[in-house]
């Protein structure tokens, strides 16, 4: 299929940026709807108009900041993959830390270090959750073919493909 034949990396940035914007906009929309509803004068019309105004003003802002985070993270991730030449959880953790540091650059070096630590820890937790999920998902399926023989490339004999 064509979408697996091409390299994921440069296109992944656009993917992640858009996905982050959507998450921020929808989540922000829900929050601002409730908040605008509650902070409006009595009367359903007022409240609905208040919540709609709150969504219109605040939700794109939250989506924008999420998109900046996601896009920057993905850019740094792809650059690290290109530099190191292998794909690792280390790339994600370092990218998270660098993203946190860059986005806090206005507040001075100490704030950058704190933000980098938070970004790195957050990404480490997300990576840990991802690894747990893949391990659990792979143990759901029954075992593959028995593997007591050595693969055929070492001795010239047909080799059955093992898949998880």
């Amino acid at each position, binding site marked *: 299929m064509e979408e*697996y034949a091409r390299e*994921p*990396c440069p*296109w*992944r940035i656009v*993917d*992640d940026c858009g996905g982050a914007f959507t998450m921020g906009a929808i989540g922000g929309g829900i929050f601002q709807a409730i908040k605008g509803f509650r902070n409006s004068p009595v009367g359903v019309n007022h409240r609905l108009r208040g919540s709609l105004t709150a969504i219109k003003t605040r939700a794109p802002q939250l989506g924008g900041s999420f998109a900046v985070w996601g896009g920057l993270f993905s850019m740094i991730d792809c650059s690290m*993959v290109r530099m190191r*030449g*292998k*794909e*690792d*959880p*280390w*790339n*994600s953790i370092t990218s998270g830390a660098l993203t946190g540091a860059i986005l806090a650059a206005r*507040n*001075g070096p*100490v*704030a950058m270090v704190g933000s980098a630590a938070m970004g790195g820890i957050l990404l*480490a*937790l997300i*990576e*840990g*959750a991802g*690894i*747990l999920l*893949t391990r659990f998902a792979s143990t759901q399926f029954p075992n*593959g073919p028995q*593997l*007591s023989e*050595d*693969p055929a*490339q*070492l001795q010239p004999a047909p080799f059955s493909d*093992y*898949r*998880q």
Partner: protein
Amino acid sequence: LPASLGRGCLGRWLLGTRGWALLGTGTGIGSGSCSCSCRRWPHQPPLLLRAARQSIGTQAGGLKSAKPGGDSKDVSVQRALNEETLVSAAQKVKEAGRDFTYFIVVLVGIGVTGGLFYVIFKELFSSSSPNKIYGDALEKCRSHPEIIGVFGDSIKGYGEATRRGRRQHVSHIEYIKDGLKHMRLKFYIEGTESGKQGTVHVEVKENLETGRFEVRYIIVDVETYPRRTIVIEDNR
């Protein structure tokens, strides 16, 4: 947060020295709070701020009566002491229940976070994790002259592609044979010469004396026509 507070203090101090007449009525309260927290500044600015606040108070017609901050604090503390004796036993039980629920929630949160940290540490730092073995095998591939000859100088390695396009997961299988743990891995490498892809199969066996995994074999399948197999290491 401390950086912004420091900058806020500096800003208000500058405002205070420049022009009191320019300050609105609202900033009187702000400079009052700033004088308490600007203790580390030299002694002159708080005096300046206090003078600014008093003059603003009289200029604005006594918006907040010029009571120094200490008195109002004493009054509020005494009121709180009187109210506490009226808290009944039922409310104490309710509060204790609420505290207990929060405590349980905090414990659950710490447990989950600790579990995730443990997983990620084991994955990245333990020498028997698939990721570590994949890294070592990739290094060996990169330094093998035959591989360099086929694929070129800079070799990329990656695992299985997930839905989002990230290829971090290396497919591996663990099994036990003759009482020892074995693990098989499979990952892909690609070189600078376009179109040349390879599949690397690695098997490691647990060594009971050292407790680590040692390599049994590393072989590379090159996806050319005719298929070609390069054996990097064979210790069977």
